[in-house]
């Protein structure tokens, strides 16, 4: 089994807010991330797929194809967007780094030809990242 990782970047705005809480509770739990005018990050996405090396091409997956899938399924939807206001999965879930990793997993899981999605890693910044391995 070979693991192959492809990186992509997107820049997005978001805020943290739970509608079931009062403004004071949101402020207490999320601090400055609760600012309703939003703030933003340069996110780095690392997608790792696992598979066997094809005897003819020598590839686990065609990287060009993987790049196109990441662009189509994730970057074109998230980049230069407001995650809370413009991306459907974050109507119901707060766009934390953890939830972004889970959402990207769901977007990609069935879309990788010939290999299995192994890990989605999302860096919100250098110092903070979340991993999702598809575990329920």
């Amino acid at each position, binding site marked *: 089994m070979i693991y192959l990782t492809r990186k992509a970047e997107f820049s997005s705005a978001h805020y943290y807010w739970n509608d079931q809480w009062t403004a004071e509770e949101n402020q207490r739990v999320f601090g400055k991330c609760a600012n309703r005018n939003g703030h933003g990050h340069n996110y780095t996405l690392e997608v790792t797929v696992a598979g066997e090396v094809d005897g003819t091409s020598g590839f686990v997956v065609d990287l060009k194809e993987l790049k196109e899938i990441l662009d189509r399924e994730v970057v074109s939807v998230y980049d230069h967007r407001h995650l809370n206001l413009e991306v459907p999965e974050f109507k119901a879930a707060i766009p934390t780094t953890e939830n972004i990793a889970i959402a990207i997993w769901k977007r990609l899981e069935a879309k990788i030809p010939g290999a299995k999605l192994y890990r989605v890693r999302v860096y919100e910044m250098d110092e903070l*990242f*979340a*991993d999702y391995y598809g575990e329920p």
Partner: protein
Amino acid sequence: MAKAYLSRRYRFSASHRLHTEAYDEEQNREVYGKCNNPFGHGHNYMVQVTLSGPVDPMTGMVCDLGELDDFARKNLLDRFDGMNLNTLDCFRDAVSTTENLSIEVYRMFAGFKAARLERVHIEETSNNSFDYAGETIPAAGVI
């Protein structure tokens, strides 16, 4: 609730000297080389802590990041940053290698109860890094 892994990086600078009373002067010099310089030397350490747990549907988080940062400030940064590691209690009987530092930092963050500690990764320089996941053997590909 889906299980996710959260990793947070902290940085501190400290001096140390690799030296053990179990060896004589010559053996210390031979084993530790320039790291045995009696005047010490230092590094900018990068500590990466990985925690796991179910993502809380109310917060979207594995754990409260502010709480984790407070814990790290109090237990790691306030104690280690700007210090000589050899003068700290935890290195009184252990050589201040990054292996031993990883084990110490792992023990430390095992005390953070809001999520499960998975592993500690420490970069001593950009060429040397160390991982410790307790006594469990991490699954292939996880580190």
